[in-house]
Each structure stands twice: as C-alpha cells, then as structure tokens.
C-alpha cells in the first residue's frame, strides 16, 4: 500500500479538541470513591488499642496470626 492509498484510507480526523474539561469530573469521582472511616470503625480501632494495652503479652500471638 502506497502512502497516497494509506492517506485516502485514513482520512484526517477533524476537531480533536475536548468539548469539556474532564478534570473536575475526575476529582469528583475520586471524592466519591474515598472511603471515610465511620464512628464504628474509630470505636473498633480504639477497642483494639485498649485491648493491646491491657494484654501486651498477647501481641506476639496476634502478630503470629497476621
């Protein structure tokens, strides 16, 4: 296939500029997907920390299971 034939087969693409700004939509999507800790998650994390403070000898056993 010659260069002319190739050019005829693939006509130039017109108006390749975006019609709108995609960045705000990207930021909005990121914000939607972000998981925010609930009060229950904070409470559970607090309970776990207290538990580890009360039973420090069990930390090794916990690490073994992780």
């Amino acid at each position, binding site marked *: 296939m010659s260069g002319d034939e190739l050019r005829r087969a693939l006509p130039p693409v017109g108006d390749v500029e975006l019609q709108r700004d995609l960045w705000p939509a990207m930021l909005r999507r990121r914000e939607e997907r972000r998981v925010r800790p609930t009060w229950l998650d904070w409470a*559970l994390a607090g309970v776990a920390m207290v538990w580890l403070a009360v039973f420090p000898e*069990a930390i*090794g*056993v916990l*690490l*073994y299971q*992780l």
Partner: protein
Amino acid sequence: MRQNHRYLRAYMAGITVPTMFLLVVVTGFTLLHRVAAPWERIIMFPMAVVPNLWGVWNLLHCRWRWTTIGMHGAILPLLLVPAGFALARALEVPWISAGGAATVLPVGMVVYYLAWKYLVAFFNEVLGVA
C-alpha cells in the same frame, strides 16, 4: 488488560497487605521475644500460610461478594487462628497456647475487619477488581 486475569489480580491484591506487613511482624517478634526461638518454625505460618489465605480469601470475595469486604475479612481469623494454633503445636512453637489463641480471636477479627475494609479494598481498587 483490565478484563483479563481478574481472579489473579484479586489474589495479588489480597496477598499485598500481609506480605508488606510481614516486615512489621518480624520486627515485632524480634523486639518482643528477643528471638532465640526457632525462626524457621515461627515464620512458617505468617510467611507462607497467611498471605496465601488472604489472596484466596480476596479471590472468593471478588467471586461471590456475599457481604461487605470488611465483614468478609473479619471472618478469616475464624479459620486462621485455629490453623495457626494447630501449626504452632505441630511445629512446637513456644508461647502459642490455646488460651492465647482464643484471647486473640476477637481482636484479630476487629483488626482484620479494618484491614480489609481499608487496605485490601484500596488494593482491589488499584488493581481494578473492586
């Protein structure tokens, strides 16, 4: 590419957290127990069993999605803790007792719930299997 090897990516997302956390585990063991204990027996479970079970567990979550990822992860210690205790007994790992394993189960479920809800979910998102 995103459509291919979905379960492999789910497995990889699952093993990421415990594999990275292994460094913390090893440091913790070293500091807590001044490890004179047999390392090759202690490290077997956290290094070989735990990451693989996380990977398979995440694969199962991506396959069925029967509940939230946090709840799915919180159930895993119900398998891991007895398995870890059994292996510790078989390999004669010191300081792993039945009482210790039972004590650690509830807080392990809490830790797993949070780890799966935030960390594994993040890696699932990154690898496109969320």
